């Protein structure tokens, strides 16, 4: 029957399979694949689904810990938060689709990550978004910002899950490849987690959700190649989202999950029915037979190839216990969703697809999954940049520099973005967007989660190892700064073409840095996503390993960054060496991206962070902020702008150039506002943590001895104006 296959190595190459990969597929099948089988191999062995370039590196990451219930490999990571509850979370990219069609690309990115979380039995309670766009001067940037933000809002607002945080940066290296990373966090009972491994030969395989159409065919393959200038022609590979159906799917699945009908469940994400059925069968060590004539279709005349590779949204695959179909069908009928028995679990270990009375494909699952190619791609270690001597830089008016920095695209307020997201629905948002971390209540007893997404790509380019470690450390710091105990993280590794050794070197370095920081901070990786090929015509993005962090905090302990009381002291925690290499100051004021990023001393991170958390929990801090982009003066300005109060600084130390002290980006630092500086300083001495008073809260301006003053209102106006003004320009 398949003797007549007209699949050639050339057609395989068009599907993104190398000659060697094609030969391997032929060897597994024992004959030349038909076009449906070719499509399945190409999707499963795409970079997007197989992680073939990253697998050897990802395996080195620490993924376990006393609280970890489920690490990477399932739809999302699961971490115990006590009292029988678990937090379920993951971050995922939708970079390529969002560049081609920003609204739908971003919207379906949110939809996909929501499904990853509720598939595991969790109710989604928060979304975060990490966004990177090209230079503000690039002609497409405004259109992309507008489309992505309304796409995220359009989806998240409608499903009724609050978008509580994230980050947004601009750099010309993203001109041809924007980054849209969406993170979802959900809550489940720790003993009611649902997994994807098929079990029980004979059990029915159920298709639920929206109907299958021709949208998004080969999205996974599209996302596994770099763009050339014809990116716009790829629009038909982008899927279209329907948040209303997603909302119904969430409610229907969670209702069904209250019973014990489900044996296994998997959402249909990239490569749709192909990857969901193959992964379920593969994890269970079993086979699956599907009758494609029973798949609910939106269009007529779809081939087996199209049905298997469609990436239509809002669909799931389930394996049910025998006899539970009637009850399950009733729940889906109530929510007006398709429910179709489309196959069964078998003992054959093969994926067998039937259509029109014929066998459309027959592939052994185990080699399809385990014989997927794994590459030890060659990589180059990055050369470190020479240090920047701060004394070699001009001495500039610090407040003029500050005004410039707070109005720069990196530090400018992102209110224009997050006000378009419903960040309050579900009535649990304790700390709204705009702070170090968002805080969301998860129990009436006052338990809450702190959530943040972080990365400093310019550091990662200058030194991938340090940059990777810094991203983890900053995430950990942001959670600590609101009083939380960091639990675990999810990583979204956004890089260029891994077939280029220098890009693979960036990836390997970032992984090494992340690994070291995770180990030092007891902050394991429980889920993640890799997005390669973020390049256009050979020009790659900055290496961008985004870290999505989750921490646990009692609501009574939560602090934010707003200055609270005149007369309080501001204490700087951590050591200041005036490191200006790779800093925001250097880029925005001196127009240079030179120098190495600041060293990351993980022992100091740990010591200083644990100390600050202790100070917060002891009730000695009424506000706290971590130091990052723009250093000390930017951090104090953010505290002042948020709280609407001024600060009078102590005389500056004389052993460093003024602006190196004020704008240096040394790590492991925080500012704490306290009414009781003596207690905090004494505790710091006892803990061996550097701490000193840098100023006092009061007035309506920032005042520096020898440098005059700048009004907090003026700073806020500059900080708030940039993004709305930019977006209002035609």
């Amino acid at each position, binding site marked *: 029957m398949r003797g007549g296959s007209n699949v050639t190595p050339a057609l395989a190459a068009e599907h993104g399979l190398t000659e060697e990969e094609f030969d391997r597929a032929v060897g597994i099948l024992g004959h030349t694949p038909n076009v449906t089988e070719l499509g399945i191999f190409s999707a499963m062995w795409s970079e997007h689904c197989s992680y073939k370039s990253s697998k050897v590196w990802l395996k080195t990451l620490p993924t376990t810990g006393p609280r970890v219930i489920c690490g990477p490999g399932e739809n999302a990571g699961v971490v115990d938060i006590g009292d029988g509850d678990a937090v379920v979370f993951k971050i995922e990219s939708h970079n390529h689709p969002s560049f081609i069609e920003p609204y739908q690309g971003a919207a379906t990115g949110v939809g996909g990550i929501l499904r990853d979380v509720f598939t595991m039995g969790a109710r989604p309670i928060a979304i975060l978004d990490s966004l990177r766009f090209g230079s503000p001067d690039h002609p497409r940037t405004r259109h992309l910002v507008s489309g992505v933000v309304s796409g995220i809002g359009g989806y998240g607002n409608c499903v009724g899950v609050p978008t509580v945080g994230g980050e947004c940066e601009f750099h010309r290296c993203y001109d041809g490849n924007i980054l849209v990373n969406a993170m979802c966090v959900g809550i489940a009972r720790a003993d009611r987690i649902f997994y994807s491994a098929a079990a029980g030969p004979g059990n029915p395989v159920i298709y639920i959700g929206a109907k299958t159409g021709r949208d998004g065919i080969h999205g996974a393959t599209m996302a596994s190649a770099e763009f050339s200038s014809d990116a716009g022609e790829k629009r038909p590979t982008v899927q279209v989202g329907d948040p209303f159906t997603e909302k119904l799917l969430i409610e229907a699945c969670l209702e069904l999950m209250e019973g014990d009908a489900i044996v296994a469940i998997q959402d249909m994400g990239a490569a749709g029915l192909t990857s969901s059925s193959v992964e379920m069968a593969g994890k269970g060590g079993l086979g699956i037979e599907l009758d494609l004539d029973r798949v609910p279709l939106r269009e007529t005349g779809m081939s087996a190839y199209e049905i298997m590779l469609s990436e239509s949204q809002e669909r799931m695959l389930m394996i049910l216990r025998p006899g539970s179909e009637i009850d399950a069908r009733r729940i889906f009928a109530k929510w007006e969703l398709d429910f179709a028995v489309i196959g069964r679990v078998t003992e054959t270990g093969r994926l067998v697809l039937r259509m029109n009375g014929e066998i459309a494909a027959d592939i052994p699952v185990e080699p399809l999954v385990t014989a997927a190619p794994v590459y030890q791609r060659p990589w180059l270690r990055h050369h470190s940049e020479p240090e920047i001597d701060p004394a070699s830089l001009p001495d500039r008016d610090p407040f003029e520099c500050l005004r410039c920095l707070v109005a720069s695209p990196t530090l400018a307020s992102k209110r224009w973005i997050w006000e378009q997201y419903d960040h309050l629905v579900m*009535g649990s948002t304790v700390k709204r967007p705009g702070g170090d971390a968002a805080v969301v209540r998860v129990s009436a007893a006052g338990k809450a989660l702190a959530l943040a997404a972080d990365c400093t790509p310019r550091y990662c380019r200058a030194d991938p190892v340090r940059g990777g470690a810094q991203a983890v450390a900053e995430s950990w710091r942001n959670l600590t700064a609101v009083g939380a105990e960091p639990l675990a993280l999810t990583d979204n590794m956004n890089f260029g073409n891994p077939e280029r050794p220098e890009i693979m070197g960036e990836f390997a370095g970032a992984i090494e840095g992340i690994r070291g920081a995770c180990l030092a901070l007891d902050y394991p990786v429980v889920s993640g996503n890799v997005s390669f090929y973020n390049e256009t015509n050979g020009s790659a993005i900055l290496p961008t390993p985004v870290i999505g962090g989750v921490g646990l905090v009692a609501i009574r302990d939560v602090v934010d960054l707003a200055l609270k009381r005149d007369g309080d002291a501001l204490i700087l925690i951590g050591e200041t060496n005036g490191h200006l290499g790779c800093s925001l100051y250097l880029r925005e004021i001196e127009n240079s991206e030179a120098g190495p990023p600041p060293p990351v001393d993980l022992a100091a991170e740990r010591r200083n962070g644990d100390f600050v958390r202790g100070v917060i929990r002891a009730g000695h801090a009424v506000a706290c902020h971590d130091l990052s982009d723009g250093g000390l003066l930017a951090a104090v300005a953010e505290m002042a702008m948020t709280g609407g109060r001024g600060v009078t600084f102590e005389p500056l130390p004389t052993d460093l150039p003024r602006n190196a002290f004020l704008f240096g980006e040394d790590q492991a630092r925080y500012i704490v506002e306290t009414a009781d500086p003596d207690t905090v300083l004494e505790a710091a001495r006892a803990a061996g943590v550097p701490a000193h008073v840098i100023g006092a809260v009061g007035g309506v301006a920032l005042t520096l001895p020898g440098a005059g003053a700048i009004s907090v209102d003026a700073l806020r106006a500059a900080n708030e104006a940039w993004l709305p003004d930019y977006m209002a320009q035609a």
Partner: protein
Amino acid sequence: MRAVVVIFPGSNRERDVCAALALVIGREPVRVWHRDTDMPRSDLIVLPGGFAYGDYLRCGAMAAHSPIMHEVRDRAAKGTPILGICNGFQILAEAGMLPGALLPNRSLRFTCRDIHLRVENNQTIFTCGYAARQTIRVPVAHHDGNYTADPDTLDRLEDRGLVAFRYCGPDGDLSEAGNFNGSARAIAGIFNNSRTVLGLMPHLENAVDPLLGGTDGRAFFEGLVGALQ
């Protein structure tokens, strides 16, 4: 007192309003599914926020024709108080139970933020928890909250004291700056003629807990429950 919250497919702020009512009443309201035609006896019917049926057509247009709306209309005619919040207000307007319509915000963007409201008429079951002309700070979260009606209708609403809330500045001033979504005469909420039906865009239910950013909505629910008990 017994409150009923109607759930449409796509409702998403039912939890929020149920929590606010439970806080004041002491027990959870009854949730009624949109397909139910048999509404339990109740002292208050709430149409919560969300995107009923996805709102891919005009907001509230499909929900206004849902089977449960016949029952809501009957109960309203018999005097049962009806509260429509955000999407609920849009549904009441589309169902013709309140005059006017909700257009896209002036910015053409979804907007979620705290805003200020001035209480225009506190002589009703809904607003009796507030002082006359009191200014409160509560959140909004909508894309289509720009209230509009013909000038005669607007005059009638004003003359009969049927304007419940207006958007205003922090000091209660009715400047254009406070009218963030461009509503006609800065109207944020209106009553029907008998002042037993209220539709409003802001989410008072998201302002009842000091841990969650404010408590200015609490007096609304306390006043309402007090009046109905």
